[in-house]
């Protein structure tokens, strides 16, 4: 092998590494298995929360009746000590897992967001704290579904 070939190979290798690294990083940062789950049970399994225990320390503030399923405001806060993440699972949506928020040092376990709901459903919130999972649900009735359009 000539020196030129080997330097070209090094350059190609470096380029490939530069191209592949961000892609790998992105793939790892989005839990395709959990977000692709079609049932709430599979979604919970996918985020490692199949064994979540009911807790009164999760507050879910949302309308009882949402007239427009395309925009349902949900406010969540956890008073479970050491909460490091919160996930939102809309049980009857085609893909139940809606979001997962990781709270690092400096953030409070609180989030407010708007979600789409295809039909009336329990909205399950899971808090992750100290290697355990805690959960609470809130039923939200939807007049007009918001997943199609």
């Amino acid at each position, binding site marked *: 092998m000539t020196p030129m070939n080997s330097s070209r190979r090094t350059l190609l290798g470096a380029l490939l590494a530069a191209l592949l690294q961000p892609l790998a990083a992105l793939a790892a*940062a989005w839990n395709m298995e959990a977000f692709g789950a079609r049932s709430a049970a599979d979604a919970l399994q996918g985020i490692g929360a199949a064994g979540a225990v009911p807790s009164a320390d999760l507050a879910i503030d949302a309308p009882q009746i949402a007239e427009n399923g395309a925009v349902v405001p949900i406010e969540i806060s956890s008073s479970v000590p050491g909460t490091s993440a919160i996930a939102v699972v809309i049980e009857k949506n085609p893909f139940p897992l809606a979001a997962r*928020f*990781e709270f*690092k040092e*400096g*953030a*409070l376990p609180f989030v*407010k967001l*708007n979600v789409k709901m295809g039909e009336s459903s329990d909205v399950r919130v899971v808090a992750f704290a100290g290697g355990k999972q805690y959960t609470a649900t809130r039923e939200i009735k939807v007049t007009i579904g918001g997943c199609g*359009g």
Partner: protein
Amino acid sequence: MAGPMKMRATATGGTTEVRVLMTHPMTTAQMKDQPLHFIQNVVVKQNGKTVIEAEISQAVSRNPVFSFRLKGGAKGDKIEVAWLDNKGESNKIETAVA
């Protein structure tokens, strides 16, 4: 297309309230004649340090709005929010705490 973002960060009694709006279609697999196009990742930074990392789905409403709460925070602290969608498009906004 990565549309404009808006953000407001306010310090009140030991916490910083961050409210951010992202312009994005957030189309779902259920929508007819529209490609699946939604934000997947959101990152919040406080003075350059990552404080919140979110993975979200197509179930988040069009033009997503999020509120977050950060510990402490003084006027002038830098808050940055960035998003990345399933097509590799991204956008970010930075603001100073008021």
